[in-house]
C-alpha cells in the first residue's frame, strides 16, 4: 500500500507538468502574482521591480499561461533563432482572454510583445 502510494506520487511527480502564470501588467511581464496585485502594480514601482521577469527556465511539456491584466492589448509570441514557435494572438485586457501555451520543443526562446517591444523575456526550455 505504501509502495503503491510512493509509486503513484513519484509517477505523478514525474508526469506532472507545471503551468507558469505569466501576468502582463503595466507593459511588463510579472510572474505568479494575483489579479489584485496586478491591478495595483502600475502604481507600485517597487512591487513591479520585485516581480518583473526577465529570464525564465522551464521543462519541455510545461506550459505558460499568459494573463493580460494591463490597461492595453498585447500580442505575445515566442521565437527561437528568429523562427516563430508560437503566437498567443491579440489579448485584449480582461479575464476572458487568458491563454495557455504548452512548450513542446527545447531551446532558448525569446518571448516578446509585438505591440510593446520592450516587453521581452528570455525563456530556456530544457
Amino acid at each position, binding site marked *: 500500500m505504501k509502495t503503491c502510494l510512493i509509486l503513484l506520487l513519484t509517477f505523478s511527480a514525474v508526469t506532472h507538468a507545471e503551468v507558469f502564470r505569466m501576468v502582463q501588467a503595466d507593459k511588463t511581464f510579472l510572474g505568479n502574482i494575483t489579479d489584485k496585485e496586478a491591478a495595483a502594480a502600475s502604481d507600485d514601482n517597487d512591487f513591479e521591480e520585485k516581480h518583473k521577469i526577465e529570464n525564465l527556465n522551464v521543462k519541455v511539456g510545461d506550459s505558460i499561461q499568459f494573463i493580460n491584466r494591463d490597461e*492595453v492589448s498585447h500580442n505575445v509570441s515566442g521565437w527561437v533563432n528568429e523562427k516563430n514557435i508560437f503566437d498567443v494572438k*491579440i489579448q485584449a485586457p480582461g479575464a476572458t482572454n487568458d491563454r495557455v501555451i504548452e512548450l513542446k520543443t527545447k531551446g532558448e526562446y525569446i518571448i516578446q510583445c509585438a505591440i510593446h517591444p520592450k516587453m521581452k523575456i528570455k525563456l530556456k526550455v530544457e
Partner: protein
Amino acid sequence: MFKKINNIPIRFKLIIGFVLIITINSISGIMSVNIMKQLGDLVNLTYDKALMSGTFAQAAKFDYSQYDSSIKGGLLSHQQDELSKFQARSTRIYSTLLEDLKVVEERALSPKSAGLIHEIIENLKLVEVEKNNAFALKAQQLASNKLDLSIEMRKNWEAGKLKNSLYKNLTALSDDAAEVGYHFRLSSEETNKKNLNRIIYILALCIAIGLILSIVISYLVITPLFKLQNVCKKVGEGDYETRSDIDSRDEFGTLAKSFNFMLNTIEEKDKNISSLLASLPFGLFYFDEKGIISKERSQATDIIFKDFSKYVTLIDFYNDHNCTKRKIQNVIDATFKELIPFESAVFLFPDLIETKTQDEKKFIQLSFKPKYGINEKLERVILIAEDVTEKNKALAESSALTERVERVSKVSYDIPGFKEFLPAIRSLFILNISILSGPSSDLGSDFKRNLHSIKGLLGIFSFNSCSTLIHELEDFIDNDLDHNISEILIKLQSAHALFEEQADDLTKLLALNTESGLKYYNSKKIDHIKQIVKKNNNIEMLNAITDLDKFPISKVLAKYSNHAATIAKKLEDKKVHLIFDPSDEISFEEAHRIDSAIIHILNNSIDHGIENQTERAGKNKNETGEIRISCKRYPDQSLEFKIADDGQGINAEYLLEKAIKLGLVNKSQADSISEKDKLDLIFISGLSSKDEASETSGRGVGMDAVKHYIESIGGTINLFTKLGLGTTFSLKIPATDMT
C-alpha cells in the same frame, strides 16, 4: 458554330486570337495595377496614420513633460526676467503641443483616440489658463519680493488633479496609437497576402487562357495544312483520285479548292496520257541515265514483250534478249555523258531483237529518240519498239514476187539454157545430199565445191532466195566447227525443196515439161471437141482426144514423192524414194479417184513395210527404201495400179495370232485358214500389224477403209507379200463413165 469559326479568314482568326490574348493580358495587368495601387494606398495609410499618430502621440507626451517642467521652473524662479523666460518657453511648448495633438487628431484611427484627444485639448486649455494665473501671481510676488511662497506654489501645481489626468490621457493616447498601429499592420499583412494570391490566380488564369487560345489558333491553322500535306503525300504515291476535303471559306478553303482543281487537271492529263499510251500501236517507254526503265509505257509494250514489268533496267531488258550486260551499261554511260553524238551512241544499242514465245517468233525493231532537259542536257532516251515480223514477212513476200518475175523473164529468154540448167542443179543437189547421207558423212572439198557451184548456178536464173539459203549454209559450215551433219542436211534439203518448188512453178508457168515436152490445154475446149467428135461417132477420134487428158504417172502422181519424203522424215532413221515404173498414162481425174487409197497404202508401206536404215543395212539392202508405182490400162479402160515396196513384207502368222488375241478369229478355225485369207486379215478393222500406234499409221483403221472405198467404186484390192522382200498392193479400178 465550329463551321462558322472555320469560315473566318485565317488572317482574321490570327488577329482575333492575338487580340484576345492581348486583352486578357491587359485585364490581368489592370487588375495587377489595381492591386498595386491598393498596396500603395496601404503603405501611405500605414505611414501617414499609424506611424504619424503613434509618433506624434509620443511627441505630445514628451512635449507635455517639457511644458510641465518649464512651468515648474517658472514657479521656482527668483527674478522677473527668469520668470518671463520660462513663461515664453512654456507658451511656445504649449503651441507645439497643440500642433502635435492636431496632427494626431487628424489621423485618429479609433473613436477612443478621438475622444481622448478632445478631452486632452480641453484639459490642456484649462491647464494653460491655470498656468497663466499661476505665473501672474508669481509676477506679483516677485514684484513684492514674497519669494517664500514659491515652494508652496510649486507644490500646489504638482498636486493639481487636472494635470495628472492629462498625463494619464496622453499615455493612453500613445498606447492606443501603438495598438491601433499594430492592428493596422496585421490587417495590411492579410491584405498583402490576399493580393499576392490574387495576382497568382490572375497569372495562372492568363497562362491557361493564353495556352488554350494558342492551341485553338494552332489547330485552326495547322489542321488544314496537315490535311493538305496528306493529300500531297497520296498524290505523290500515284493516287491522283485523292482530293482535299477542306470546305471552309477561309484561305485554306481557297487553297484546297485550287489544289483540287490542280489535281483534276493532273488527273485528266494522266488519263489522257494513259489513253494515248493505250492507243499507241507500238511499244513505247523510256529510260534514264541509270538505265532505269520508266513505269509509263504504251500498252502495246506489254503485248510485244511478255512480262515487260519484270525489267527494271535496260540491262535486264537486253539481258533477257541475249545481249551482254556490260556492253549495254557502257553504251548507256556513253549516251548520257554525251561522249559521242546521240545518234552515234544509240547506234551502239542492239536495234533488232528476237522474242520467242511458245508458238511464235517475233522480230522487234527498236528505235531511239532523245529527250533533252531545260539545260539542253540529255534527260532520258525514249525507246520505240515495233513488231516487224509481219512487215518482214510482207517484205520477203514482195521480194519473192519480184524475184519470181525476174526469174520468169530470164527463163523465158533462155528456155533451152534453163532446160540444161535444171538437171545440172538437181544432180548437184542430189550429189551433195548423198554425200551427207553417205556412211562417212565427211564434208570434203567436193561437197563445198558443189555447194559453191549450186550457188553460182542459181544466180544465173535469179533463184536469189534459194541462193541466199545456200550462202547461209556455207556460212554455217564455216562457223560450225563441229560439223553438225544432220543440221546441214536439213538446211540443204530445205534449199533443195525451195529450188524444186520454184523450178516447178517456172515449169508450170512457162508450160515447160522438161521431161516430155507436154503442153497444157484448156479442158473446156477439149470438152467441146469431145462433144463434136461424139456427134460424128468417130470412136478412134474420140479416144485420141480423150487421150489428151492422160499424162505419165510420174507427172500425175508426182505429189506423192513429196508426201512419201515428208512421212519418212517424220519417222526416225527412215528414207524412202518413190519410183514410177514405165506405165500407161492416166488422167488427173483417174488419179484423184484413188488419192486417199494411195496415201493410205503409202503411209502403211513407209511405216510398217520399209525398215529403218540400220535394219536395212543389216539385211544388205539399200539404206533408202524404194516404193515403185506402176499402172496398167486394160482395153475396157479399167486400171490396175501396183504399189510395191521392198520392205520386210507381212508376217501372216503374226497377223493371225493378233487376230485371235483380239477375238477376230476363232482359234479352232485358225488351222483351216489359207495363207491368202490370213493376209487379208490386214483389211479387217481394228487390226494393226504394229504393236504401237505411230503418228502415221497403226491405229488399225487404214487398210479396211481403203478396201471398203475401193470396193465401193467397184474395184478390188489385193496384196502379195514375201517376208523380208516386200509387199505389193494391187488395185483394180473400173473405167469411169466416158460421158
